[in-house]
């Protein structure tokens, strides 16, 4: 598994690199000391995992994730509990408090591998270009959302609202930006404002103007415009 370490302290990077020598399955392929250099490393090297410090000279670790085209798996490393806990209030991968012990690192990596296996056996197609997660910062809260878990994406004003698991979050990006990251085999654009995950469809019924009305598993109704109805028929082989 390829790892990029992002930390502004050389000694802190050295410490992590040294610890990772105990784990032959993991290889450190790059180190960055600020958001800018980390961004280019991530976009060029497509690492599987980031060990990411929260405080960086030109922004925070969250800024980095927000700007990256590709969201790798992330383990935060921080000396400052408060910040880390705030980020993990909802759900994220894991975090390590500095100084990091080999035992604690081992646990965090084991947790990742468990998640990896569940993704692999889930038989869901994975968009290698964007990773399996989407990072969303909604005000104070940060979410790492698996694309599989997203049921519905909706345009709300200038933002996109994502419905996943039992909650929803707002991403301050355009719908076309988000659509590019989605796996086209899994997601379908029903109309100008809504994209759904095909795995969450409950029923499809004919609707006015040669369209469809889709009932999602959670009971939410989504209209499919006439233009998109034909495409949906092909996708679902109706």
């Amino acid at each position, binding site marked *: 598994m390829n790892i990029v370490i992002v930390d*502004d*302290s*050389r*000694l*802190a990077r*050295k*410490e992590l690199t*040294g610890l990772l020598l105990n784990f032959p399955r993991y290889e450190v392929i790059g180190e960055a*000391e*600020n958001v*800018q250099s980390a961004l280019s490393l991530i976009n060029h090297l497509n690492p599987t995992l980031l060990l990411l410090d929260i*405080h960086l*000279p*030109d*922004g925070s670790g969250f800024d980095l994730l927000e700007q990256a085209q590709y969201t790798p798996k992330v383990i935060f490393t921080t*000396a*400052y*509990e*408060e910040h880390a806990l705030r980020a993990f209030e909802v759900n994220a991968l894991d975090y390590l*408090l*500095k*100084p*990091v012990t080999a035992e604690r690192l081992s646990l965090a990596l084991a947790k990742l591998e468990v998640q990896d296996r569940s993704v692999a056996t889930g038989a869901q197609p994975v968009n290698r270009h964007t990773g399996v997660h989407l990072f969303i910062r909604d005000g104070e809260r940060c979410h790492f959302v698996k694309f599989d878990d997203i049921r519905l994406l909706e345009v709300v004003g200038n933002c996109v609202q994502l419905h996943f698991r039992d909650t929803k979050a707002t991403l301050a990006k355009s719908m076309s930006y988000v659509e590019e990251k989605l796996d086209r085999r899994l997601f379908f654009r029903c109309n100008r404002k809504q994209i759904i995950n095909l795995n969450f469809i409950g029923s499809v019924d004919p609707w006015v103007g040669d369209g469809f009305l889709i009932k999602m598993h959670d009971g939410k109704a989504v209209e499919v415009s006439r233009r998109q109805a034909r495409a949906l028929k092909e996708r679902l082989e109706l």
Partner: protein
Amino acid sequence: MTTRETNIAHTSRQYWWFQLIFWAVYWVLNLIFARAYGYSSALIDGVFIVLSLLMLAVTHGYRWLYYRYGQRRAVGVICLQLLWLLPLSALLLQVLFATLIYAGIKLYPAPGRSLGTFSIGGFVGYVMNTTVILVLWSVIALLRAEWGKRRTAERDYWQNEIRLREVELQILRSQINSHFLFNALNNIRALILEDVQAARQALADLATLLRGLMHSDSLATVPLRDEIDLVKGYLALEALQFEQRLTFEIVMEPRLLDAQVPPLLLQTLVENAIKHGIARRNGGGHVRISATSVSATQWHLRVENPPAQLPEDHKGSGIGLKNASERLRAAFGDNSSLELVLLSTVTATATLPI
């Protein structure tokens, strides 16, 4: 609690002196008026002593009511209650007084002691006179009580301020602990693999810094010399984090080394310079610390650093600086000040008395 108890005892003695003098004066005035109207006898003097004692008893009753029911109420509400309480008690007092005189004359008749003629007009006059005196007494007593209450509140306020300051200093210490301390430990951990001598020195610096933090007291001041030592240790540890990205110089007028400063003042300023300046620049920067006298009575303690690369989201910032400013004022009052100027460099200047 002891201050409060002695305060009450003190108030109580003051109260009894007030009562004694007030009603003694009342008694003497009554005698003067009686003589002016041509009445003068030992009996009359005695009767007026009884009147003064009755008044004293009634007003002592007022005091009891005040402490029992009135203390927490607004002055306006108390005054409204007095509107009916004062005339009523004046009336009852005069009825009691008249009854006592009547009984006295009946029980111990003697030549020259007569009841005279009872007139409603005269009685109403006595009641009104008594009411006026009671109003006068109440106004004085109420003012005194309210003033005392205010003074207690003010003293409590300052005591709370001091306690708050202590808590703030504790929080300040723990802030330094949580963020900086763990980074320092992490860096030293890596340094052990790289340079054992440097790691040993770093641990000694950390020990000096921790000792300084633990011993600092919010009320006392320390010599600048001690604060500089602490800051040098702090900077050495930050240098592990930032390496070549952090450079610093300390320029001191030797005679200022014994000047007094609030504990952790310089440390707070330097920490701010690093947290909001050096740490937020890809290339880091230079911190300049200087102490210079500006007049015969004042000197400047100054920390300069380059500004952050990106504008900060100002969440939670400024607390350390505000705290430092308040501690400076608590130590030196109006002779001191703290200002932050943001230009091409960020300059924090504390002005202190020599």
